């Protein structure tokens, strides 16, 4: 579904991503792990069009995405749950969801989508009229994910969804992500919390210093990773 081929990208002349190639098959959950500053978020931003791609190609369902503007990329069917959720703090839960269906592909179906979201996360329905800034950490992540769902994406990017959440909430969070996964969405998730993320993954990539150091299917990844870490000191 998503194919990244030999991509170099960054924010100015300084290229953060070096020759990145990876893919997200339809309906699969792919995770990107690695230390801070590895370029994981930059890859997500490059796909979304907010970081500049200087060389290489990104395809989505065969369509070339290179340096398309962000609104266009969302209309094509890719949406992101940004790092920290980044809700519109002064808007209500309801309005945050509604703005999620701003893309033309989502507008006509917004009631339908909202019903689905409320079925998945009933708490959001009861808190509809509440200001987003007053929600708890876990509820905010719930809302952030739901807002992204409102745009009816085919591929969902998640940028460190567990960041800033208490350990108890983490379990619920990954429960939400699992729920989304079973709904059939394709997911590309960047996570620091490797162990938890790997439970959900079909395939994993390890990134460091802007390169993909290692990648494998979930079951083999952890084993091979510990070995590589021992030998190569990653």
């Amino acid at each position, binding site marked *: 579904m998503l194919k990244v081929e030999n991509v170099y990208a960054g924010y100015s002349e300084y290229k953060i991503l070096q020759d990145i190639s990876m893919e997200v098959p339809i309906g699969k959950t792919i995770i990107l792990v690695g230390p801070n500053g590895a370029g994981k978020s930059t890859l997500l931003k490059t796909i979304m069009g907010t970081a500049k791609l200087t060389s290489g190609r990104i395809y989505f369902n065969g369509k070339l995405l290179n340096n398309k503007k962000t609104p266009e990329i*969302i*209309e094509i069917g890719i949406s*992101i749950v*940004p790092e920290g959720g980044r809700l519109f703090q002064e*808007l209500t839960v309801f*309005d945050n969801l509604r*703005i999620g269906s701003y*893309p033309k592909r989502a507008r006509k179906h917004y009631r339908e989508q909202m019903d689905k979201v409320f079925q998945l996360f009933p708490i959001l329905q009861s808190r509809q009229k509440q200001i987003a800034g007053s929600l708890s950490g876990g509820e905010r992540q719930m809302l952030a994910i739901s807002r992204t769902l409102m745009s009816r994406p085919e591929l969902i990017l998640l940028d460190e969804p567990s960041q800033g959440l208490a350990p108890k909430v983490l379990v619920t969070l990954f429960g939400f992500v699992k729920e989304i996964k079973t709904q059939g969405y394709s997911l590309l998730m960047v996570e620091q919390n490797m162990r938890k993320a790997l439970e959900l993954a079909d395939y994993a990539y390890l990134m460091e210093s802007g390169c993909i150091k290692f990648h494998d299917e979930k079951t083999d990844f952890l084993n091979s990773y510990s070995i590589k870490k021992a030998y190569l000191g990653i």
Partner: protein
Amino acid sequence: MILNAILNGILYGGILALLAIGLNLMFGVVQIVHFFYGQLLMIGLYIIYLLVVGMHIPFFLACLIAVATVVAVNLLSHLMVVNPLLKAPLINQFLAMAAVMVILENLCLVIFGATYKGIPIILPILKIATIYIPISRLIAFVGSMFFAGLIYLFLKKTYIGLAIQAVSQDREIASFMAINQRLIYIITMALGAALAGITAAFFVPIYSVHPDFGGPFTVISFVIVVLGGMGNLPGGFLAAFIIGTVTMIFSTLLSSEFGAISAYLLFLLIIIVRPQGLLGIRART
């Protein structure tokens, strides 16, 4: 007598409220300090004067044309001056806007001359017991409240309105909602200018225009916007009424100079104690 002042103050505040909304929107969304906002108001008045007195065009049509002209002037400034400078140092933005202000004022001075220009529309004054209410101000108040209500519905109920709120709260994430930032800027600048043009229409029976007309209204609009909390529309609305009533009360009790002094003094007091304004939150990025 105090009651009279308070009532007229509320009317005055309501009229200022619409102006403040225009400024607040542009401030919150495009994040510019719109120094020539009062001059847009002035241009609106001049255009109506020109069309009605100079060309005998019917009043309502003249108002429509004036609103369109003011919107055009602001959009032109947006494309030529504001937009190119959005990423420039703030001081550049300030000075560029101030330059546009000086240009607009002097253009009007050249075209229309320095004398006050007014349209002879005289409306009666309503007298209820000891209360005097000029009909012109009553109409302006009702009209302003009507348009304020329209803006409220627009912002809350339409997708574009919601997008405007989103961009003013978190520009970066708004683009992740497929919102076209450029388009929202243009719509907001048009809306802000339209509100100035509409206020000009209501000002016709109340004020005569001259090239220095804009300045005090820019200042008072800024004071209201900052007092209410920059970018905060309910705050600006509340602040407008406070400024309006305080001005009127002290104008009536003492003199119009003291009306102005009291209002600005109150503003200073509040802003020193509470820098974020009445309903403002701590500084946003």
